[in-house]
């Protein structure tokens, strides 16, 4: 792996930038691996990286049906935060946030993690109480969180309409100063480059079409490029989790929905933090290039289509114009959607399955991006030891039978 640094940039620049090599190899698929990870998205690549780095498991393939980073890792709104309510979620998301803080150095790849702060605003007394409760819970878990008055919010984001005369007046809010955004594509590319350097094979255009088992153990995957043997398989395929799991006869509590986002033309910098409102369902931040990134809600019907319902866009734009009248004439550049895998309790599944050697990391629903480093870390541990890391033990598939659900609808319902 070529080390990215200023001296290296200057040295190679003086030679006309002719000797840079690709960030990762086009790996040749081998007939057998110790571990196969299905899905070269953020979580899958992070898993491969930590498997090789922390557990010395380097005979690993990451299979991808399409192209690397073409799924939800490149389709989210890039928001990172850890202000979740329950202990189990708070611990795993905060663990992730700590990894984010040194990720660029860890990967020697600039993921442009920017801790510009993250503001949740409340439009009703009830919402304010709920947010105050979450601030208390966060602080007990060592997560930075503070309550802000309407005046403090107005000072922080002057372009936000905090007048009491609006349809949904801003009554207060919470701030997580360590929250922010990262460049999502760079996260996939950085993990891919670092995993590849440790010997992981990343194979694109290789779709899994079947899962072979014998005596209750996974033995191989059937793919569009032939059969590949492996004793351990991790499925990290987000919206298509049910499709893959059903190949092994496993039923999941997951529903797939389109989740849309939009980006506007670039503007001069007008506000710093990520602003989110659960009541009117919008979350928005301004990128370093000046574009506004707007996130919407999911389409209600189950769907794998990558367009999304136009009605949802109307809804989110109405909410943005209500909160930020200054943006009412900004033009949209583009809109896209990803297929998100939503669990009934809005918490992920990072778990073994009834089939030995077959593991799932899915159900992140609308909010998986922020968890990418921590998810990869604990899933790598799970695959290497064939048992969960303490941080993902509560996120087992069994919880839907035992009833130990982790209800994060309050913290996960908006701001993906």
């Amino acid at each position, binding site marked *: 792996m070529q080390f990215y640094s200023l001296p290296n940039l200057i040295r190679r620049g003086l030679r006309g930038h002719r000797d840079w090599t690709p960030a990762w190899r086009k790996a040749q698929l081998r007939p057998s691996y110790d571990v196969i990870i299905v899905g070269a998205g953020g979580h899958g690549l992070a898993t491969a990286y930590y498997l090789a780095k922390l557990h010395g498991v380097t005979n690993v393939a990451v299979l991808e049906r399409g192209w690397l980073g073409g799924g939800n890792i490149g389709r989210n709104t890039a928001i990172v935060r850890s202000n979740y309510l329950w202990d189990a979620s708070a611990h795993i998301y905060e663990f992730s946030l700590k990894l984010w803080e040194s990720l660029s150095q860890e990967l020697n790849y600039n993921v442009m993690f920017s801790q510009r702060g993250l503001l949740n605003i409340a439009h009703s007394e009830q919402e304010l109480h709920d947010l105050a409760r979450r601030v208390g819970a966060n602080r007990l878990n060592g997560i930075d969180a503070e309550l802000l008055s309407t005046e403090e919010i107005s000072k922080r984001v002057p372009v936000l309409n905090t007048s009491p005369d609006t349809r949904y007046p801003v009554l207060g809010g919470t701030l997580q100063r360590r929250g922010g955004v990262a460049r999502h594509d760079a996260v996939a590319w950085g993990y891919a480059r670092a995993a590849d350097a440790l010997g992981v094979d990343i194979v694109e255009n290789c779709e899994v079409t079947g899962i072979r088992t014998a005596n209750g153990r996974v033995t191989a995957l059937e793919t569009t490029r032939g059969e590949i043997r492996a004793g351990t398989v991790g499925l990290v395929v987000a919206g298509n989790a049910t499709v893959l799991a*059903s190949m092994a006869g496993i*039923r*999941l509590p997951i529903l797939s929905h389109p989740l849309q986002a939009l980006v506007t033309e670039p503007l001069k910098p007008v506000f710093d933090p990520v602003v989110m409102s659960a009541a009117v369902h919008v979350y928005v931040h301004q990128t370093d290039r000046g574009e506004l990134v707007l996130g919407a809600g999911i389409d209600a019907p*189950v769907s*794998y*289509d990558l367009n999304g319902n136009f*009605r949802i866009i109307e809804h989110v734009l109405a909410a943005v114009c209500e909160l930020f009248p200054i943006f009412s004439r900004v033009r949209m550049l583009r809109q896209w959607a990803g297929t998100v895998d939503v669990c*009934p309790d809005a918490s992920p599944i990072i778990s073994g399955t009834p089939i030995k050697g077959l593991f799932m990391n899915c159900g992140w629903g609308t909010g998986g991006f922020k968890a990418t480093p921590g998810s990869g870390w604990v899933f790598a541990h799970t695959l290497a030891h064939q048992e969960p890391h303490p941080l993902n033990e509560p996120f087992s598939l069994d919880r*839907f039978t035992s009833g130990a659900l982790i209800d994060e609808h309050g913290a996960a319902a908006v701001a993906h």
Partner: protein
Amino acid sequence: MLLIPCPWCGPREDDEFTFGGEADFPRPAEPEALTDEQWADYLFMRDNRRGRHREQWCHTAGCRRWFIVERDTVTNEILGAGTYGGSP
């Protein structure tokens, strides 16, 4: 946007309707006789099919009746609609 064919009112825009999830899994007659696994399967586990999908809709802002729609979940093409008991 979907154009949903209500069996009673004809095709209408989707904002008149409420999505009611997958069709064809009736509530168990004797829930207390089920194991925890069977009950979890009924409560939470879904086919979440990629492709042909039989699902329930309610014409909330219309006749307020429930019915069944068959739709392709990749293309969103509506393949048919029908009432309970009759095949769509």
